[in-house]
């Protein structure tokens, strides 16, 4: 096939909303890198100052400005791949220009290497192969509990339009359009107690209502599929194996709020998912569930956008700036996206899992969803479990389920039965839990009482043989590299903490070391501008709390 000319690329995308990222990707794919000439053409075509464009593409991990850079391997050296052969594979491929990348969301199937637009998996540089991402493991039956978002995910063909339809797909949208007013739908989502599954846990119904009430058109629905948190890979499973559920959830959000356009912001590291979603959107559109006059009721145009490697672009303000083609710093809040979102208009930003929960809620009712949780808790949560467990993978649990029960009984415990030394919470953002605090139930009130949080539900397990200081150092290095650089406490604090955990700088005397680490953490937590800088010190705080001896040995040596 003849490759597109500069003008053809610009012309085909310039008219769409949020055109910068797809245009950059089109040049990146075509040329194998972003050449100065390409940047000049784009700068002119989109009227973005060239200095801004140059600076902004440099923000993203995966845009290469050196010839052929797009095709050079990126090897995952995230916390889990590091426990496996990540570093060895990187070394083996280095001479061919391989570079490290942070967790690429495949911790249930390590090690992952990205080459061009393909994810390869393997345990050495020689056996790297593409393969479909793992399905969630079959969950044990639990009295009175059924899965919500994973209920049909293992049905064959569920990821295809026909398979989705034959397992009840789009029935919720049909039901809403024929039986429910916007008000009915909003009340139902509110009554279900569904809360955001992307980390912050904001009640979804209230968010939708705020957008419904906010003045300004067109409104937007943004599906946050950036999933950059290390140890989180649940959104990948949903999008790979049940993409229409997320699309249907978005359409329901659009119907409820009156939004006319939608975006899925997908992380760069999921190239296969991109193709699956592209197909799913086309199928949904040609079958009348997206686009104009959906079921005779409303219009909703859905666009797929691909990120380029930046954890912070999962933060909603940063994500919106990235979509708009701006430098992806988070935004100052308030105002919030519900009133000033995409292009400063009312916008729902919801996580993949949140959106996928909506169709079952519409079909089976708010009460049904409420009652899925353990004890007083509403609903379910997908936990991405990885690390030192026999059966890593995504598990949908009733909220309030005991952590050790999940690790020991569902995931088969640790290999060779070693003691669990620690787990991380919220991917890395919740820091560590260890010792007696492993005896928690998986719900926010319980986990917050230990100074951590459940967040997006990534849990990495480390057995008693692991060096916790080293794991903490890698975690802090991740935050330091992913800090956007906007605010002082995080930009400097993450670097200083990483230096101290890695032994590269800082006092050699324990009390002083602890004093500095604590002061940095306190000020970061109190004054950082977004969740990254607020959460990062949980790593150092919990390390000091649970592993004082390992810390002491580290400082002394």
């Amino acid at each position, binding site marked *: 096939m003849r490759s597109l000319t500069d003008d053809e690329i610009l012309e085909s995308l310039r008219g769409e909303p949020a055109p910068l990222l797809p245009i950059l990707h089109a040049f990146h794919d075509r040329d194998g890198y972003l050449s*100065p000439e390409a940047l000049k053409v784009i700068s002119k075509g989109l009227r973005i*100052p*060239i*200095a*801004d464009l*140059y*600076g*902004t593409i*440099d*923000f993203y991990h995966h845009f290469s400005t050196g010839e052929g850079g797009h095709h050079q391997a990126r090897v995952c050296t995230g916390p889990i791949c590091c426990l496996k052969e990540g570093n060895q594979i990187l070394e083996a491929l280095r001479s061919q220009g391989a570079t490290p990348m942070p967790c690429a969301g495949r911790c249930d199937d390590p090690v992952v290497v990205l080459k061009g637009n393909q994810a390869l998996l393997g345990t050495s540089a020689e056996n790297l192969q593409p393969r479909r991402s793992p399905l969630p493991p079959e969950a044990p039956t639990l009295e009175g509990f059924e899965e919500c978002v994973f209920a049909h995910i293992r049905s064959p063909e569920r990821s295809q339009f026909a398979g989705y339809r034959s397992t009840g797909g789009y029935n919720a949208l049909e039901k809403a359009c024929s039986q429910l007013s916007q008000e009915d739908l909003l009340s139902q989502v509110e009554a279900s107690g569904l809360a955001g599954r992307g980390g912050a846990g904001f009640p979804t119904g209230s968010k939708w209502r705020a957008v419904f009430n906010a003045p300004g058109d067109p409104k937007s629905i943004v599906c946050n599929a950036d999933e950059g948190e290390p140890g989180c890979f649940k959104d990948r499973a949903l999008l790979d194996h049940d993409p229409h559920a997320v699309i249907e959830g978005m359409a329901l959000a659009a119907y409820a709020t009156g939004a006319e356009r939608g975006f899925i912001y997908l992380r760069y590291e999921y190239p296969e998912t991109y193709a699956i979603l592209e197909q799913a959107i086309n199928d949904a559109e040609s079958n009348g569930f997206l686009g104009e006059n959906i079921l005779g009721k409303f219009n909703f145009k859905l666009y797929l956008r691909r990120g380029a490697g*930046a954890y*912070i672009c999962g933060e909603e303000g940063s994500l919106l700036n990235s979509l708009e083609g701006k*430098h992806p710093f988070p935004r*100052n809040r*308030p105002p919030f996206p519900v009133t000033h979102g995409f292009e400063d208009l009312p916008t729902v930003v919801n996580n993949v899992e949140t959106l996928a929960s909506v169709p079952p809620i519409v079909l089976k009712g708010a009460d049904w969803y409420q009652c899925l949780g353990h004890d007083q808790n509403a609903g379910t949560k997908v936990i991405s479990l990885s690390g030192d467990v026999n059966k890593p993978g995504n598990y949908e649990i009733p909220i309030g389920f005991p952590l050790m029960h999940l690790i020991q009984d569902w995931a088969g415990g640790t290999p060779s039965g070693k003691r669990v030394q620690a787990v991380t919470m919220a991917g890395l953002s919740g820091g560590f839990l260890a010792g007696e605090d492993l005896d928690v139930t998986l719900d926010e009130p319980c986990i917050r009482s230990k100074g951590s949080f459940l967040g997006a539900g990534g849990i990495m397990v480390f057995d008693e043989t692991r060096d916790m200081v080293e794991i903490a150092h890698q975690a802090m290095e991740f935050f*330091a*590299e*992913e*800090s*956007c*650089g*906007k*605010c*002082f*406490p995080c*930009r*400097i*604090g*993450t*670097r*200083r903490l990483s*230096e101290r955990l890695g032994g*590269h*700088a*800082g006092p050699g005397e324990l009390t002083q070391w602890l004093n*500095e680490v604590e*002061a*940095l953490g*306190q*000020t970061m*937590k*109190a*004054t*950082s*501008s977004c969740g990254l800088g*607020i959460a990062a010190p949980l790593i150092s705080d919990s390390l000091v709390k649970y592993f004082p001896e390992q810390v002491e040995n580290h400082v002394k040596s």
Partner: protein
Amino acid sequence: MTPPTHLQNKQSDPDSKPQGQETLTLTLDGEEVTFFAGETIYEVAERHRKEVPTLCYDPRLEPFGACRLCVVELEGARNPVASCTTQAQPGMSIKTKTPAIEEHRKVLLEMVVSENDGIEVDPLRGYASQELSTLVDRYGADTGRFQGAQSGCSKFEDDNPFILRDYNKCISCYRCVRVCAEQEGDYAISIKGRGFETQITTEFDGLLKDSACTFCGQCVQTCPTGALADRKALRAEGQDGELQKTRTICTYCGVGCSVDLVTQEDRLVAVQPAMDGPANEGALCVKGQFAFDFVQNPDRLKKPLIRREDGELHEAEWEEALQRAADGFLKALDEHGRHSVYAIASGRAPSEAAYTLQKWIRSGFGTNYIDNCSRA
């Protein structure tokens, strides 16, 4: 030289009410105070002389929220809020100076100092260049704490005659980038990389002269650390004599930008924009900012010159020179008619002189061939 005063310049009477606005109230450090819709907490606090510290703030720019020094305690909020980016709301209860807040500010200053190779810089570097060191002194921040890698990489190879790019001293407040975009509209500089590796850059990391930069110097004058420095002013670094500032108006064009001439004994060493200049609010163009060397150039004419029969220029008295010019004009008029004369008034001439010139051309010669050089 006095420390930056642009904030004080903007202060009005704390109790003055903007006209036609509803009076709203909030509690500030235990005292009920009034404010008007649209004000930020910082603006209210500033009006009440709370001396909230800032580093990324420039009253001319959109609040950005980078340095976090301006955080205050807001009742009901889980964390302190940045006062510069938070709108004041009726009924808020705010504390600007609790021990915890002051401690965070000190730690933030210690963090930011730790990323630089030093914070004492010559005031000649620029208008706001003392902001960081002044705050470090005010808070008694420990400059040896939090040691580690240093950020920013100076670009000394950019050998333009005006702006020194000493990013070893940069604290990534992005005031330069924002002033260039928001005030100057040039978008010549931007932000590259992220996190601690963030670096101020130009298109393709090149030299300023190959970028969209017009050398207006605004980035230099807003820089709170002297990382961007006035190269021409720095020629006087280390010379004897106290620095003095004299407020005047730039003589280059009709806009009337207010400037402070910085002098050392009888020498003009720098020009700095007046942040409270009504016409320019701290903006200048390359000429007003940097083109002042002519003032003390030894080649500058002090007497009129007349070209005599020998073909050479000779010094003369004004009487004779003016007579000579008048004769020339009359000769042209006689031989070629009234439209053979054409006058261009200097943009640097005051209005009175420009008026006189056009009067002279129009009624003296009877032609409308008169223009002004600052029409472009």
